[in-house]
């Protein structure tokens, strides 16, 4: 252990250790990487699994219209709870400015299918015919497919 003799008042020791700084920075980075996905206006739903699911990138877009049905039968448009009758007009409003009229449905796997059908009816009343059912990835290892 070499003891750096410091002449008081004369030389300033500016050997700053970078490692603790990088450590702190990484911890902050991890915190934000964990927090950010929870910030999207998404409702927490347990998605069902599917074998033949395809990638639906459009669901990640800012203006994607996402209808969620929770296990207890509540219907959400984005993050706002709605009643079935409000769905139609609200979706029409959201789709006005979009060219691609596709709506995504995130329904809990144990949600009552009757409620899901009500949500689909609501979407249908907005004149939408393309519906994407969002599912969980199955058997996916860490590879971007």
């Amino acid at each position: 252990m070499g003891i750096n003799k410091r002449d008081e008042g004369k030389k300033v020791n500016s050997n700053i250790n970078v490692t603790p700084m990088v450590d702190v920075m990484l911890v902050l980075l991890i915190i934000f990487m964990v927090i950010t996905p929870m910030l999207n206006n998404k409702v927490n739903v347990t998605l069902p699994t599917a074998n033949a699911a395809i990638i639906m990138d459009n669901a990640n877009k800012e203006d994607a219209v996402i209808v969620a049905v929770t296990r207890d039968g509540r219907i959400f448009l984005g993050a706002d709870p709605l009643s079935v009758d409000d769905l139609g007009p609200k979706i029409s409003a959201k789709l006005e400015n979009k060219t691609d009229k596709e709506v995504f449905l995130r329904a809990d796997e144990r949600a009552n299918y009757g409620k899901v059908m009500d949500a689909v009816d609501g979407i249908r009343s907005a004149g939408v015919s393309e519906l994407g059912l969002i599912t969980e990835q199955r058997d996916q290892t860490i590879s971007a497919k």
Partner: protein
Amino acid sequence: MGMGGGGGKGAVSEINVTPLIDVLLVLLIIFMVIVPVTPHGLNTLIPQPPKDKTQDQPNDRTIVVQVISNGKGEPGYKINEDSFAKSALEPKLAEIFATRQEKVMFVKGDADLDYSKVEEVIDMGHQADVDNIGLLTPRVLAGQ
């Protein structure tokens, strides 16, 4: 412990590689965890009400897969009035659609089922190469 002498004049800086590798591995793990978050899903169609008032003749080539709820037990599956076991559904669908040009299928489920049961049937439809799967909801069945 060799000490690379750091005096005032001949500054020899031996950097420790270990913390660097640590930091690198942490970054690597972070990106391995972050990447796979693309949403996956199944495409379906919702039949729209016909524009004209004339009755749309039900095509006798339509395939309707029904999921019938059985109370607490496993649901029953039917393709156009013929019952099938769940494991026999996908092969049968593959067989039906192998010879068809227009791969269109409709799915109907009882209201008291779990959504996952119907979603599995839609999944099987996609596995059997059917691109156009229509969902039959109460309003679709009534409004036509």
